[in-house]
């Protein structure tokens, strides 16, 4: 089912052009790396699904299989995302690897918010905690906490690269989603470091804004997770993602003037204004 949004012919051409730019990035990646050296990160969210769809277009054109795709199991997933991922995996024949930090899940007894004792973790996980400056004996099992985020996402990501000897990894990041991304390049080489294997991050959809993205979904009838219909604009872990506008599909919200990273509890503008009054800084 495609999203219900009228897209003009002119806008459709614009979206096709954006997709074409992305395809060029994917083709370039396929020239730089062998297909088996490439990997894809997928979450079932709107950015990584568009990325996956575009990579699949290029693979079909070149008659090669999709690169190995990872999805992170954090232990706090939406059922709707799981269903969507299952469906797309079958329809698109995605070589999917569900990656989890089993060691941490076990230490937490597979229970959200359970206390994880650092000394019960593997040596690798303890070293990872040291690397981020974690200095405590225990932490609550939550994917969105700093330690949780690192162990459940970053470490699992690095292990996926290591295990599959991946040299180039596709990511669905966009320039407009986060100020820290404003000058991210399409190809970014990461030298090997402590616990991080050498790899290149490839970001084919960097140039898409949130609006471009939804217009492209509508124009090219790309499947999406139905949680976005309910008002979510950004999907993370189940217990920490918030609906931006109840019942209003993401593409019908005022996406150009409001925050994508949803559910801001604060009146940020007002607080910024008060902070700005502090003249010296």
């Amino acid at each position, binding site marked *: 089912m495609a999203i219900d949004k009228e897209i003009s012919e002119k806008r459709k051409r614009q979206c096709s052009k954006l997709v074409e730019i992305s395809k060029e990035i994917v083709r370039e990646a396929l020239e730089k790396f062998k297909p088996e050296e490439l990997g894809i990160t997928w979450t079932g969210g709107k950015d990584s699904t568009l990325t996956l769809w575009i990579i699949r277009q290029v693979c079909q054109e070149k008659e090669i299989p999709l690169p190995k795709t990872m999805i992170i199991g954090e232990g706090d997933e939406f059922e709707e995302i799981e269903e969507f991922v299952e469906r797309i995996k079958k329809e698109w024949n995605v070589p999917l690897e569900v990656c989890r930090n089993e060691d941490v899940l076990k230490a937490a007894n597979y229970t959200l918010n359970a206390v994880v004792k650092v000394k019960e973790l593997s040596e690798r996980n303890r070293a990872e905690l040291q*690397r*981020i*400056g*974690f*200095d*405590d*004996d225990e932490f609550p099992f*939550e994917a*969105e*906490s*700093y*330690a949780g*985020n*690192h162990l459940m996402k*970053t470490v699992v990501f690095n292990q996926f690269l290591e295990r599959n000897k991946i040299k180039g990894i596709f990511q669905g990041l966009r320039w407009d989603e*986060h*100020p*820290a*991304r*404003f*000058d*991210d390049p399409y190809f970014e080489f990461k030298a090997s*470091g402590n616990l991080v294997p050498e790899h290149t991050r490839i970001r084919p959809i960097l140039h898409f804004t949130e609006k471009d993205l939804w217009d492209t979904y509508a124009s090219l009838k790309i499947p999406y997770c139905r949680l976005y219909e309910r008002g979510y604009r950004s999907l993370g872990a189940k217990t*920490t993602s918030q609906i931006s506008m109840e019942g209003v599909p993401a593409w019908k919200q005022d996406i150009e003037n409001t925050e994508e990273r949803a559910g*801001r*509890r*604060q*009146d*940020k503008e*007002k*607080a*910024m204004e*008060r*902070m*700005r*009054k*502090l*003249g*010296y*800084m």
Partner: protein
Amino acid sequence: MNPEIVGPGCPRGIPGHVEMPLAVERLPNGNTLIADAGDEAGFGSEIVEVDPVGNIVWDYNEGLRFAHSGRRLRNGNTLITDTSNNRLIEVTPVKKIVISSDEWGGGIGKLSDGSHLHYPNEAFELEDGTFLVTDRNNDRCIQVDRKGHVIWLYDKEIKHPHNADPLPNGNILISDSDGNRILEVNRKKEIVWSYGDGSPKTLWWPRSAIRLENGNTLITDSKNHRIIEVSPDGKTIWKFQTEHVDKFYITHVTKEGTFLIACTDGHHQVIEIDRTGNIVWLFRNYRRPAPVYARLTNGFFKELEENGIPKYWVLATRLSEGGGRLIWDEDNKPYPCPGLEYDRPGALFLQQNIAAKVGETYRLGAEIKTIDVKGAACLHIDFYDDFGGSLYRDITEMPSGEYFTGTNDWTHEIFEVKVPPKSTFAQLRLAINHSGKVFIRNIMMNKI
């Protein structure tokens, strides 16, 4: 465990070190008088007189807190606005206080209109021996005599003025800093000239204005990091800017027609420029007091200094207007965590300098709790250039986590930051302004 330090710090409060020059003037003897507001932890505020080759020939520092101006009077004494102490003092060359506004009103610091100076920023001596004082947090400029009688005042629609300059025709040129305007008012309190439409594009937090002999007005447009010369009909006819984000504070014109500029918390120096924009004299003897650590250190606040401040962290009180303190949540498990309590419009910070490489991306995280925050509290990160100046024009441009207001239970904060070009090190800060309490625990940072 000894932390790895990549840039050393130096002892605080050594007399003669200029950390934050806010006001400057060239004296008739060719020396330069500089008001230094001191370092980020509140030490080292002083007034120094520097000769042309850079010797400090006189200084006054007794009890000063965030002093904003020092002006040499006709009698040879020095008039000082001791800003965070909310007082005005006149000191002799042998450092004896002969006038203190604290003595007014029978020793309680009251002026004849019943008010008290609140965060005075600038004070000049007028022809008749009275003082023109910019009383910032009372949103006014006042003329007082040496006994505290208010003779004249201007308080109409100005917000946080920083400087009021007496003109030869008797008018006053006021820098309405939060109003983003410069006003010339006459003695009947009529606005006879103004510049700036209130938008930060025209003027952003102008700190001072002077009328030049040619009739133009030289404006220190601080947050636009430029000095502009504006003609009476409002045209910009000259501009000075450096490649840095300089927050110039006060500009003084010398009798040779050069401009002396205080380049403040940014670059810790006084520069003298000519009309070509060439720097013809410079005074700088800054040494950064706080070390730069190789990585975030003591982010879990397990180690404490003897004075109760977390080790390797700095409690930055410079902008706190005399209020605020470090507090602890003693009930936090498994050990107490620190916080900031604050009660006035300025701001208080708990901060640490950390090495950061240009182009790298870091992920930062912490847990934050707030109680009754009226302004804003947040974890943010500033980056400094190779002169020790911030790369950002305004605090709200700095990468940060959530801006918290009101009361919030423990909240996880995670944000990413890319080290911007020209950066030499990062300064991570827990910040609070206005009033309330903020607690923090488990700060982490790593390169991604």
